[in-house]
C-alpha cells in the first residue's frame, strides 16, 4: 500500500491508498461528524452529515467523506460556509423526525440548526440503517430490514426471524441514534412472541 499525501483543513495528512477521507481525517485527529457510520460496518453514505468540500480534478464539490477515497493532492475542507450550511439543513430535515435524539441535538447546537424548522413527522426513525446493517453484516441474521422506498421507506423487524433471534441479542439497540428502534422492536415483540410481552407486563 502506497502512501498518499493530501491536505485536510490546511494540514498535510498522510494516508494509505484505499482509505476514505473520513479515515484519513480521523487518523490525523480531525473530527468529522457522522450518523450512519460505524467502524464494524461497510461505509454506507446515507446520512450525508459527513459531507466535506473537496477540490479534485479542477472542481470543487461536496462529497461524503465516509465513502470518498483519498487521492494524491486532494484538498479537503471539513468546515466551510457551504459544508456548515448543508449540514444545518440536513440536521433540520432529520430533526423533524427525531427532535429529542441526543446525537442530533448536540450537532444542532454546533451548526445552529432549528429543530422546529419543519413540522414534526410521524416517523421517529432517521433511516441511518445502523440496525439493519449491523444485523446483516455483523450478526448475519437479517432480522430487520428496509421496506418500501422514497418518502415511504421504513425499517421493520421480520417477525419470523425476530422471534428466534432478537430476544437474546438486542445488540442493535444501543446503536440507534433515536428511540425508534426499540419502539419497532416492541411492536414486533407483541406480534411475534406475545408470551414474552405478557410476562414482562405482568412481572411474572
Amino acid at each position, binding site marked *: 500500500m502506497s502512501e498518499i499525501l493530501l491536505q485536510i483543513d490546511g494540514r498535510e495528512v498522510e494516508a494509505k491508498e484505499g482509505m476514505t477521507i473520513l479515515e484519513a481525517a480521523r487518523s490525523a485527529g480531525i473530527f468529522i461528524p457522522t450518523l450512519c457510520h460505524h467502524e464494524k460496518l461497510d461505509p454506507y453514505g446515507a446520512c450525508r452529515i459527513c459531507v466535506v468540500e473537496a477540490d479534485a480534478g479542477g472542481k470543487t464539490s461536496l462529497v461524503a467523506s465516509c465513502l470518498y477515497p483519498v487521492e494524491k493532492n486532494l484538498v479537503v475542507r471539513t468546515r466551510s460556509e457551504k459544508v456548515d450550511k448543508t449540514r444545518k439543513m440536513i440536521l433540520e430535515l432529520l430533526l423533524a423526525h427525531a427532535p429529542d435524539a441526543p446525537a442530533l441535538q448536540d450537532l444542532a447546537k454546533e451548526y445552529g440548526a432549528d429543530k422546529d424548522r419543519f413540522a414534526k413527522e410521524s416517523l421517529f426513525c432517521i433511516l441511518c440503517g445502523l440496525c439493519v446493517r449491523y444485523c446483516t453484516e455483523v450478526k448475519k441474521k437479517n432480522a430487520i430490514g428496509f421496506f418500501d*422506498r*422514497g418518502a415511504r421507506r421504513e425499517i421493520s423487524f421480520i417477525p419470523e426471524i425476530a422471534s428466534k433471534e432478537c430476544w437474546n441479542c438486542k445488540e442493535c439497540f444501543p446503536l440507534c441514534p433515536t428511540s425508534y428502534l426499540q419502539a419497532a422492536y416492541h411492536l414486533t415483540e407483541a406480534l411475534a412472541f406475545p408470551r414474552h410481552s405478557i410476562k414482562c407486563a405482568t412481572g411474572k
Partner: protein
Amino acid sequence: MPRINSPAELEEFRKDIISKRDPKRPCIAVCTGTGCLALGAAKVVAAFKEELKKQGLQRKVDIRETGCPGFCERGPLIVIHPEEICYLRVQPGDAEEIVSQTILAKKIIDRLLYVDPITGEKIVRESEIPFYKNQMRHLIGNNIKIDPKSIDDYLAVGGYSALAKALGQETPEQVVEMVKDSNLRGRGGAGFPAGKKWEFARKSPGNPKYVVVNADEGDPGAFMDRAVLEGNPFSVLEGLTIGAYAIGSHEGYFYVRQEYPLAVENVTLAIKQAEEYGFLGKNILGSGFDFTVKVHRGAGAFVCGEETSLLRSLEGKPGEPRARPPYPAVKGLWEKPTNINNVETWANVPLIVTNGPEFLTSIGTKGSKGTKIFSLVGKVNNTGLVEVPMGITLRDIIYKVGGGIPGGKKFKAVQTGGPSGGCIPEEHLDIKVDFDELKKVGAIMGSGGMIVMDEDTCMVDVARYFLNFLTGESCGKCSPCREGIRQMLKILTKISEGKGKEGDIELLEEIAEATRDASLCALGGTAPNPVLNTIRYFRDEYEAHIKEKRCPAYVCKDLISYHIDPDKCQACMICLRKCPAQAISGGKKQIHVIDQEKCTKCGTCFEVCPARFDAVRRLSGVPVPPPIPEEARMIVRESKQK
C-alpha cells in the same frame, strides 16, 4: 436456419434475401408500435389480411407489421410501398377501399391523407409531411421498413454490416477510437462521451467484463427507448455486440422495464434470431469472438435508470445507488469492469462503424454530435416520436415538427429532461438543442422527454407534480434526497392550496440547494431542478399564489372559483345539465347560479357555456360576487313581452 460463418457469407446471404424481394411489389406497412396498437392497429392488420384473402391477393401483396415511425398522434398509421403513400387514422373499415383503390387501381384516397393545417394541401408521401420532413431519422427511419420480428428484414436494410466490418477489418482498439472520434455522447441524460467510457472499461483490469443496455426508461411521458427496442431491436443488439468486441466483453445484458412487454418480447426474439444466424454465441462470423446476451426485466423503479442502481438490481439486490467513484468501468456488475450505455447510444454505434466517425461529427453543434430522439408530448399539435439533428432550435421542434400549440393557445414553457429537467420559457426558445446549451438555461437534455405547456399550465402545479413523482421514486436511502424532496413537496402543496407563506420561496431554494449538493446519486442531485427552474423563470406565479392567493393559470383548485355572470347568462340549461356535482341551480328562463359549496371546480360549466353567451367566469384571487337574489333571476325577453 442458416448459420453465417464469415462476413463474405453474410453478404452472399444478404444478396439472396434482397434478390428474392421484388422492390415493385406492393407492401402495406402497418405500425404496430404501442401507440398504434392502443388505437386499434391489430384490428387494422386483421382487416387487411382478411381483405387480401377475399380478393385473392395474399401472394401478390405483402403486409408488414412494423415498429413506431413516430406520428402517434394520427395513428393507426400505414405506409404503402413502393409509392410511400402514408395514410393516417386508418380504421379496419378502410381496408377494403385501400386494397381495391390504392393497391389495385393505384388511386389515392384523399380523406386518409395528411392535410397541412395552414395551406390545406393534402400530402401523399410520408417523407413530405412536415412532421417528418423537418426530422433527420437515422435511428428510427428504418422502423417503418422492417418487421421487428424478422432478422431478414433487418439484413435487407443493411443490418449487421457494421458488425462484419468491425470484426473483419478493425481491431478492438480501432473501434474504440472510432467511437471516440465520433464524439458520441451518452443519450441517457448525462451526456458523457461514450468512447471515453469504452476506453476506461477496455483498459480497466479485471475479468470477465460486462456490457449492459440501460433500457429502464422511466421519465413520465417518455417513450424513445421503447420505440427503438420495439421497432428495431437488432440495431441496439448489433451496437452492443460491437461494443462488447471493442471492450473485451463476452457477456451482455438488456435491462428492460417489465412495463414494456412488447420491447421485452421483441428484444428476446431478436437475441434468439441473432443466435441462430451466428451473430451471437461462439466464434461470431468466424472471427473467434464469443458473445452472449441475456434480457433482465426491471420491476419499474425510476431510480434503476441510474447506472449504479441498475447494476445492483441486475445482481438481484435492492435497486439503490452507490457512490461513484469507483465507476462501473472499474467496479461494475459483480464488482467487474462494466460498460453501461443507454439504448439510443448503442443504436448509434452501427451507424458510426459503417459510415465512419464523420457520419456523426458532420451533424450537430460543437459539443453535441449526431441526432437525438425526443418524445414530443403535451400541448402540441403533432405529438409523437421525433428524431432531430443536434443544434436544431426548440422553436423548430415545437412549431415546424410539432405543428405548434393547439386551440390557438399561447405557448408557456417546454419541459425537457423528465422529472430532473427544467421548464424553458418563450424567451429561450431559440437556443440550440445540445447538451451544454440546455444546461445553461437550467434544463437538461435528459434522455429525451419533451413536454410542451400552454398558457393553461400552472408552473407551481408542474413543480408539485414532478416532486410528487420523485417523492415516491427516490430510493429513500440518503437523507437530503428523501427528506429534501418530502419537505419541498409539502411546501409546494401548501402554496398550491393557498396556504403559502412569505419566505416559502427562499426556504424552497435553501432545501433545493442542500438536496442538489449533498445527495448520493443523480436522482437527488437533479430532483430540485423542477423547483429551482420554475422559480427562476416564473417567480411571479409563485408570488401570485403566496401573496394574492391567486393561480394565474386557473389550475390550483383551492384558489379558483367559477361564477356565472347574471348579465350574460341566457338560461340555456347546458351547464346546469352537464355539471357533475349538480351544483348549478336555475331553470328555463331562470338565470343559473353556482352553489360554491357544492362546486368541485372541474371546469365543465366553463367549457360548455356557448361562446356566444360567454357567461361563465373563472375567478382567482378575488371574492366570488354574491348570488343574485332569487326574485331577480327571471329572464324576461323583450320580443315575447308584447
